[in-house]
């Protein structure tokens, strides 16, 4: 028996919108500690990891670990039927091949049940290597979204370089090139607008903007985004979900044709 009651229903809607472009089918894993998902995109270049901790739910009951395979587009379709202020409850019976989403209006005068068929998805958990990052940039998520969007109108890839000066996003394409530098900026009264750069050593990596743009769909979940970079490692783009968990996107870099990365 599984029953998860999320007062802030809009949160789940936003999560779905953030990941459904990257991944079409994924397993949602429920355990005693929380509701999570880990999935790779079809080209095995990007990975999304979502965690919603049990404490974040108003009511969390998960008798045994359960993995539910869902088509994210179908799930998004159902969740779009929930109002932004609705309370969403996810319910599933042991051994059942369906999941039920229940939407309650804030005034409790309307209750909707949507039952979705589950699917059998063959996937295994990835071990994500624990590592120290050479540079960690925290910046306003809206700013990061804007940068990715702007740069993708000029080029296909973005070079993210962190130096003492700040973090530089650059691209070049057929029509020309662009550089955007963001400097450290700590605003005491507005922590959500701060840009904080923690750098152990300078780092510069190239990524496909297509993926970055799809990550920024999660911007509505958090005012701030954390970008962790290390050479020879995937970048981590993390959006914290207030008091509940996080959504993390991992993206493998692009490298020069001749240099080979050690597996």
């Amino acid at each position, binding site marked *: 028996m599984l029953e998860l009651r999320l007062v802030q229903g809009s949160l789940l809607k936003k999560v779905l919108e953030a990941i459904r472009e990257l991944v079409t089918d994924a397993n949602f894993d429920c355990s005693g500690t929380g509701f999570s998902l880990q999935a*790779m995109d079809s*080209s*095995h*270049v*990007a*990975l999304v990891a979502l965690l919603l901790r049990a404490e974040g739910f108003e009511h969390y009951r998960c008798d045994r670990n359960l993995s539910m395979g869902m088509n994210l587009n179908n799930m998004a379709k159902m969740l779009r039927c929930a109002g932004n202020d609705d309370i969403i409850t996810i319910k599933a019976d042991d051994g059942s091949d369906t999941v039920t989403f229940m939407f309650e209006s804030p005034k409790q005068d309307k209750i909707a049940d949507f039952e979705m068929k589950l699917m059998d998805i*063959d*996937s*295994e*958990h*990835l*071990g*994500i*290597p624990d590592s120290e990052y050479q540079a960690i940039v925290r910046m306003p998520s809206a700013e990061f979204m804007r940068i990715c969007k702007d740069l993708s109108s000029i*080029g*296909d*890839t973005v070079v993210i370089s962190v130096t003492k000066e700040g973090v530089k996003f650059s*691209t*070049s*394409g*057929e029509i020309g090139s662009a550089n955007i530098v963001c400097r450290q900026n700590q605003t005491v009264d507005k922590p959500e607008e701060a840009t904080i750069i923690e750098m152990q050593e300078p780092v510069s990596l*190239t990524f*496909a903007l297509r993926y970055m743009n799809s990550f920024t769909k999660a911007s509505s979940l958090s005012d701030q985004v954390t970008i962790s970079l290390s050479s*020879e*490692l*995937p970048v981590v783009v993390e959006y914290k979900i207030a008091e509940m968990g996080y959504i993390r996107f*991992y993206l*493998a*870099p*692009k*490298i*020069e*044709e001749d240099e080979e*990365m050690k*597996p």
Partner: protein
Amino acid sequence: MADAAAATTLEWATKEPCLMGIDEAGRGPVLGPMVYGCMYCARSYNDTLATLKFADSKTLKEEQREELFESLKVNSSIGWEVDVICPKDLSAKMLKRSKVNLNEISHNSAMGLVRKVLDMGVLLAEVYIDTVGDPEKYRIKLTEKFPGIKFVVAKKADSLYPVVSGASIVAKVTRDRALRNWVFDETALNMHMKTGSGYPGDPDTKQWLEDHKHPVFGFPTLVRFSWGTCTPFFKDAVEVTWESDDVDEDATNNGRAKRQVKLSSLGFTGFKRKTEEIESSGKGRCKFFQARNLELVRKFQ
């Protein structure tokens, strides 16, 4: 391609200032080559030229044009040249990554003719051209390229100046012959030359296009693929995936290709290789299939 008539420069042309007319044939049709023709003569001969009954090639019948062309070929007081742009070139230029529009192609062809004639030692003084695009801009472009020559760019120049009418006959006859004697690159069955006028509105032309379309290759190279007329015929054509496109996309960046790394090569471990990857590697399958990169597919599209 031009069967150069004036391979040896005519003597008068190097001594006397000359007039030249340039005109085109086959700009509009969806198939066949576009031909630029030019005709030149000594300035003093211009009056005689006016009596030769050259008129705009479109107003003449095909036989009349052929006749005039033959008479013009044997006339030692007239020189001429053609530039034949084959449909394959037109399609390629107009569809390639940095596109060249038809006006640009026309301008270049005309300027090529002027250059060619000058290189032969002809003393060009005045050049008359039927306009393509804005006449004044075209004139400035030409004057900048060839200072010292007076350019007259006009609409309907082929009916105004006999020397342009002559050029239009040269161009039109060359195009007609090229089309009549067209040898297909393709060897499909049942190909025919009932192309009609070649203009997109002509029902015969439409029928010809319908008869000659191919789901993979489109049309024979006689057709200008870049014409809007062609697009509706490809509605239910086969979708082709170009493997090189992915590489191309990267190559535009900084001019050097970058390779996208997969997560599995960066220490992300433990996930099952997706079946598709195992299949495409051909692991554990007969050598015959491995060597030819043949894969099992479950779905045909």
